[in-house]
């Protein structure tokens, strides 16, 4: 599913965020990416989301070399990738239902289909009763569940989560992890960046540890 070969990301002043990274993540895997702050976890996810370009090396997702994609191909690729961020990134001017349904809308789904899809994922995260609420009216855990619902509204084959439990207490963190495990059980490849060792231990999946931009452990 994901393959990197000698992947490096060099920022200005000669600072490497990632250095000579060679990783393989299989289709349908659930993998944790961990390491201390500044280890390069978020940079790796940003490269996979094509928010940044690698300085050296190659990234392949589903056999496609990401560095050769055209603008239109990038759009196509991103439609197959879901994402969840620590700060939720919900749109404050839209209610819960609109936050979710606008993803299938901008992907061109007919109204009836996108409404059905939005309601379906809302029900799955257990927040259908909050569909008319605005993000400011929701707790952190609820906001993250909405963010997860939005991420799966486009039926992604790959889900990237950057510190999805960073703003949540342990119970809510485990709840969010259970949702991610359910998504993975449906066949979606899930890559979670987190520095929460306890959570990794509880979930118990393959873990890639980065430090100063290099892989230091795969367990």
């Amino acid at each position, binding site marked *: 599913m994901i393959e990197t070969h000698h992947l490096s990301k060099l920022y200005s002043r000669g600072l490497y965020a990632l250095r000579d990274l060679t990783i393989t993540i299989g289709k349908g895997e659930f993998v944790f990416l961990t390491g201390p702050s500044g280890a390069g976890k978020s940079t790796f996810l940003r490269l996979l989301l094509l*928010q940044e370009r690698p300085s050296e090396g190659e990234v392949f997702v589903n056999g496609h070399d990401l560095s050769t994609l055209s*603008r239109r191909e990038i*759009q196509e690729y991103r439609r197959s990738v879901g*994402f969840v961020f620590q700060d939720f990134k919900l749109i404050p001017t839209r209610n819960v239902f609109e936050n979710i349904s606008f993803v299938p809308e*901008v992907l061109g789904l007919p109204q009836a289909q996108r409404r059905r899809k939005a309601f379906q994922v809302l029900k799955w995260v257990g927040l259908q009763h909050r569909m008319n609420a605005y993000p400011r009216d929701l707790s952190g855990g609820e906001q993250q569940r909405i963010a997860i619902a939005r991420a799966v509204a486009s039926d992604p084959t790959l889900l990237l989560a950057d510190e999805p439990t960073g703003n949540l207490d342990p119970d809510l963190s485990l709840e969010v992890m259970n949702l991610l495990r359910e998504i993975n059980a449906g066949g979606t490849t899930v890559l979670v960046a987190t520095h929460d060792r306890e959570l990794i231990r509880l979930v118990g999946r393959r873990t890639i540890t980065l430090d100063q931009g290099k892989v230091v452990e795969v367990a």
Partner: protein
Amino acid sequence: MRALDYAIREGWASLWRSRGSGAFAVLAIALAMIVLGALLLTTWNVERLLAQWSSAAEFSVYLQDDASSEQRGAIEALIDRSGVIAGRQYVSKADAFGRFRREFADLASLTEDFEDNPFPASVEVRVRPEAQEDGRADALVRRVASLPGVADVRYDREWLARLASGLSAVRGAGFGLAVVMALAAAVTVASVVRLGLNARRDELEIMQLVGSPIAFIRGPFVAEGVLQGGFGALVALGLLWLGLMAAGGWWGNELSLFLEGGSLQFLPARLCASLVAGGMAVGGLGGFAASRYAV
């Protein structure tokens, strides 16, 4: 089609959310459209009147006081034979004096001190429209002016031509001013739309991350500009109409006298539609410029 529907809905929602700053953009476009609309209103009315006056153009042959009846007969015979006239009328010195006292009643008292009648006799000639176009009327005027007994020949066409030439100059200057104001309005729209765009950075980032087509990302900003432009043009049309009504109320009698019984008319539907389309185009241009910052 879905992208257009989405763009209009989101553009409208954004316009409503930022209606305070949006009002500035609408006002800027309205000002530009008022200049352009006033120009169109003026030139359209003047052109209409010019066409009306041109179709009824006439020339007057003023006779010398000592012109003999033979000389007058020769003048009228030449005019009648020319084949370019729709009709003619002899106005004697007494008729001319009486007409002045009727038409300029305020000045009539001045004529009481006259010892002699100062108004010359004349032959008023109505010219066929086709004779004006092909130059035969001009040739006749030149020939008549050279006949004995003729003091002067006044041909309406000269001042109509001067008016038409002045109108072209006004149109050129006004159009230039309207273009400058339209550009300024487009810049204002772009600034206002960009303000809204900056407030929606998170939303735009998410749209890009989910792989939204460019039309979905940029479309709402263009639509917002188009809507602002359309509203601005409608405001301008409303104000112009009110202005015309007010002018009619204040100076209706004077205008009617000056326009020989005619009146100023508001722009026809096709020009109103053009003005609204122009406003929408200016707004859309501003929105399009701002939308470049969305991706």
